[in-house]
């Protein structure tokens, strides 16, 4: 009889699990800034085509964890990451990994909109150009248009593509940055408080965009706004003092969280 060993079955199951849902896997992730330990053995998985929100009080490690996902911490002196993080089951901290290529696959949008001091067109075209994604001018035009379309900015920007990106309003600039991140066809988009500098209407537009982008991308978002986490995400992870306290379905997290610290934090109570 042709029977698989128990270990082989388990391995096959693990693989099918990750194929079905897990885009990134963080295992025992710790981060040190020099002597100071900022993250303690975090085990957190990021599901494919899902918006995962990271919440927690200031200094809890949520942004630190976010930055480990595309090795942004590499740029900080004295920062050390231990544990294992995989993207499609490949270790992103492996010495053979090209960090530039990794960041094309795992893009990032920051708190403050930071367009390049160039035209709207060039803001989008820059990434595809350095990654060699467009062979001809018309290829590039197509990428710029589709990226602006996806970021919901095309109608507002199509007649002013040669104007500086910095001339847009704050909300438009943030959507330009999202378009720029989308232009290199990443698989995962990391967002570090993308709406904290925006007014409620611009925030609603970005949230609508996050909802649409989820079909094609996997999104991880750090937010200080509990309501935003509840509105945009399907999974929520709560950090506290460098530890992952709880990770759960967003519906469960905001109606009946398992951990008392999560409960106190989201309800605005003293712990």
């Amino acid at each position, binding site marked *: 009889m042709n029977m698989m060993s128990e270990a082989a079955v388990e391995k096959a199951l693990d693989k099918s699990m990750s194929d079905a849902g897990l885009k990134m896997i963080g295992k025992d992730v710790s981060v040190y800034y020099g002597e100071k330990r900022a993250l303690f053995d975090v085990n957190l998985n990021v599901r494919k085509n899902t918006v995962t929100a990271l919440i927690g009080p200031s200094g809890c490690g949520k942004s630190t964890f976010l930055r480990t996902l595309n090795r942004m911490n590499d740029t900080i002196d004295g920062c050390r990451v231990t544990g294992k993080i995989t993207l499609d089951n490949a270790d992103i901290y492996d010495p053979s990994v090209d960090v530039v290529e990794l960041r094309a696959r795992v893009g990032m949008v920051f708190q403050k909109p930071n367009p390049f001091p160039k035209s709207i067109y060039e803001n989008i075209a820059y990434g595809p150009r350095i990654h060699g994604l467009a062979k001809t001018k018309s290829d590039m035009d197509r990428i710029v248009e589709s990226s602006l379309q996806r970021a919901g900015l095309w109608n507002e920007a199509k007649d002013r593509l040669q104007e500086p990106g910095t001339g847009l309003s704050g909300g438009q600039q943030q959507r330009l940055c999202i378009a720029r991140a989308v232009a290199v066809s990443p698989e995962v988009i990391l967002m570090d408080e993308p709406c904290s500098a925006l007014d409620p209407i611009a925030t609603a537009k970005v949230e609508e965009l996050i909802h649409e982008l989820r079909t094609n991308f996997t999104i991880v978002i750090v937010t200080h706004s509990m309501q935003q986490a509840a509105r945009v995400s399907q999974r929520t992870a709560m950090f506290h003092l460098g530890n992952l306290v709880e990770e759960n379905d967003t519906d469960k997290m*905001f*109606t009946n969280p398992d951990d008392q610290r999560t409960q106190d934090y*989201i*309800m605005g*109570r*003293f712990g």
Partner: protein
Amino acid sequence: MSTHITSIYDEDLKYLTRRISEMGGLAEQMVAESVRALVNADLALAQKVISDDTILDDAERQIGEKVIVTIARRQPVASDLRELMGSVRIAADLERVGDLGKNTAKRVIAVASASLPRQLARGLEHLAELALVQLKEVLDVYASRSPEKAKSIRERDNEIDAIYTSLFRELLTYMMEDPRNITPCTHLLFCAKNIERIGDHATNIAETIYYMTTGSPPEGERPKDDTTTSFGATGA
């Protein structure tokens, strides 16, 4: 439980708890008075119960408004949100209890002319006592927020149902004995049903409290011993 960072939020929640306790106290009083009015044929007391009902109606509306405003202003989550939704449900149940007391009081006039057999009055009083004990206990559980006690109240509703069933049989017997009993006995049957329904509302409240405190509905079917629905079906 720890308090909110914004203290006025706690004030909002305390307001709701206080108003619901007040509603509970009044509903309890109305039910007790309606049954006393019925047994003693006390028309003045019956009239008082009828007019007290508007106080409960107003309280329910005010609680609903407070909940709407609190949700709009504070975007409550987790147990705060369950607490607010629970307040609306409990206020609605208590308002219904008041309505049932009022309905019993309205029937006092119709029944007052007929002399009530002592045994039947005792049966109704006993039924009301049980319903009132259940209502009182559930209000205590509301104050203590104990999911275990909420669960035990829910499991006891069958006592009331059993007595209701036996009253139902008794009233049928009186009606068969003498057709002149039919009118007062029909009113009494409605009164008994009103009281039995109060037990159901107390059980609803117990379930709501269980959900408010634990975040999940109580498991299993609630016990049911009201077998009057099948009376006569087999020609009995």
